[in-house]
């Protein structure tokens, strides 16, 4: 298992953002759904080793992230795209991705090839030398994805990765996620249930810091038959599970 969470808690003052989450994830694309404030981003930040849990046990890539040496090793094999991507406007696309490749301690000789591959995988080859300040929001999102995958991560954490992408790019990105999920654990936090339906082999739904559903997209769809509200079957399943959790 690449991710093992046991009774994970995280609180900010009196607010329990994550409240007793248990999760085991192997290779594949794992969708994390939930309304705003459900605790998705906090859970992702704990998986990304930037936010220590208030309680519970985490093991990532068979290592304990509380130990500095293990945490460093995990981070070498980690890719992370935060919800709000910060970037340096004066860097070019290639420079920004190279910068993160270096921070991820990739072998120096492998960096140019890896950067070029990452740029091409997100279809930004034509903008490789453009300054980030000149890019649109969708392009910046793709830059963020490129920096996350530049080190060919074993654990890839994507927070709203398709926000700002146009429909064609979203379709392409789902293909990318599927291909990455063949050998790695990809955790995708999103509001867009169609992304989950198209790319994820498994999905979890969070509400009030707890996982209230875990199963395949088809199982989530089945929960909505005759109950939930929404235009798409998966949306109806999503709303039905949430309604049940709140009631």
């Amino acid at each position: 298992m690449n991710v093992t969470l046991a009774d994970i808690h995280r609180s900010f003052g009196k607010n329990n953002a994550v409240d007793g989450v248990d999760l085991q994830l192997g290779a594949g694309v794992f969708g994390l759904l939930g309304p705003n404030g459900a605790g998705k981003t906090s859970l992702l930040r704990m998986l990304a080793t930037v936010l220590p849990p208030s309680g519970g046990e985490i093991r990532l890539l068979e290592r304990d992230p509380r130990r500095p040496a293990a945490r460093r090793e995990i981070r070498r094999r980690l890719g992370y795209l935060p919800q709000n991507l910060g970037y340096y406007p004066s860097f070019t696309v290639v420079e920004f991705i190279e910068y993160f490749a270096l921070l991820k301690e990739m072998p120096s000789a492998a960096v140019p090839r890896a950067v070029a591959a990452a740029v091409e995988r997100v279809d930004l080859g034509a903008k490789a030398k453009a300054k980030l300040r000149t890019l649109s929001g969708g392009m910046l999102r793709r830059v963020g994805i490129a920096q996350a995958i530049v080190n060919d991560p074993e654990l890839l954490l994507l927070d709203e990765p398709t926000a700002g992408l146009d429909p064609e790019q979203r379709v392409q990105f789902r293909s990318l996620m599927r291909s990455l999920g063949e050998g790695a654990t990809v955790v995708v936090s999103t509001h867009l249930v169609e992304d989950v339906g198209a790319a994820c082999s498994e999905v979890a739904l969070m509400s009030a810091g707890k996982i209230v559903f875990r199963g395949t997209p088809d199982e989530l769809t089945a929960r909505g038959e005759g109950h939930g509200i929404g235009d798409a079957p998966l949306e109806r399943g999503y709303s039905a599970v949430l309604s049940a959790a709140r009631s």
Partner: protein
Amino acid sequence: MSVLSVPPARLAPSRLTLPRWARALGLELKRNAVPYLLPLLAAVFYFDTIRTADGTPPVWTVRASVIDNDMLVEFSVFAAGLAAWAGSREGRRKTLDLVATTPRAVWARLSVALAGTLCWMLLAFIAGVAVLYIRTALQATWGGPPLWPVFVGVAEVTVVTVIGFTTGVLFPGRFTAPLAAIGVAALNMIGFREALGLTASSSTYALLSPSRGAPLIDSGVFSPVAPDVSIVQVMFMGGIAVALFGVLGLAPGLRQLASAGGLGSLRAVFADGDGWLPRAAAVILVACGGAAAATAFTLAGTAQPDPLAGTTTGGTVLGWTIPALHSAASDQPLPVLHDCTSGSGRQGTAGSGFQAVSGAGFQACVHPAFAFDLDAVAAALDPVGAEIAGLPGAPVRAEQVASTRGGVLAGSGISGNPPVFTYTAEQVGNMYGAFQGDPDTATSRAGFQQGLLNAFLTGPSRQAGPGPGGALDAAQQAVENGLMTAAGSPSLGTFTGMNMDGKVVTPATATAVSAAARRFAALPASARHAWLAAHLAALRAGSITLAQLP
């Protein structure tokens, strides 16, 4: 193109494989903000530092003082602001989470970013010093470039860069950079003001500030400048830089401390980070840097006035020694090999030493550091020297001496046998501009002549200071004015009011002096000379009246 149909061969061109840190430093240098502001810094450097330096004589120590007093203020303000901008980048650009997920240690990551700004600022500083020193080398006639001001400058640029960067890391925001720049400018101004008025009874901690007043114009010429204060400054600033660099190693926890506040968060300082070893190294650096700075602070408190440097009449000490660091070697006067001329023309070259004088030619000698002004000095003194040549007490030579003697500013005067007119760059040149790089104006020239004639006319027992308003009586003043007119110089006029002896010179007396001076100047040279030979003793004694003048 589909993301799945990527041609793997479409890759970046192969590059020389550099270590990771070197590639990261390359990126930081390439995308640093400093180059964008270099033109502005260069303009400020030219209009302040270079123009100030051009207004001083090409004497190495004097020119080098511009580094501490002008150049460092400019560079430190830019360095602090730009470093704060670089340090606040992760916070401003909200990349903290993103970079925190990378295995690169925070300290290593921040060090490379700091090094990018520091390299640019030090390069700019060294380039500025090179410009200043090359210009000086092309004009200077003696000595070589002092290195201690450069070391102090490097230390200050380094420490303000580290201060700015650390401030940016801990308090990221768009206003951090301008506030850091303003803060460093204020520190410089406060330090400058405090150092400027240091007296023997002051507490001497202001010596830790590199900024100070302009040195004596012949500083480092007759005796070496003791490096004691510079050593303490480098130790102090270096210590702070090392300590703050250690603070950067504790940055993740300190960020939490800064944002959360309260001692309860202090635990985070030691809990976060990249393992115990970097944190321990950071703590050791903080301790060592703090100890070095504290030691320097203590040493500065023990500073004592340097008797070789002297004290102004206002009590401001012009140089300091630190007993614990002082070397007796720096108390030894430097060998003086004057550059001299005679009335018949230039006899020596810089560093060639005294030339024997034969005949009645009046010889002007300057320290070789001031050889650029030798001709101007000779042109000023030769005519009046010729007017009084052969008279009792008339100097056969004018010789530049150190501006301070026994810890106080020295005056000019005539002494020795044969009589020699001794003058200092500070007393004569500074007052009249002869050594200030000013053009050889009639006024500065006349002032210099007046300095010699004052000493001659008052005699060895009662020499007055140079300049208008010296304590000459009316007859002496008239003779001096007449001699200067005869020598082709304009009289500086007759002082009215209370003179140095407490006597009041009325406008009516001044008019009478002018009339007598005109009469005296109109005499043939031989008649003036003969009258002076006959009446010089009485004139010096003050027993000659205006009416008795021919």
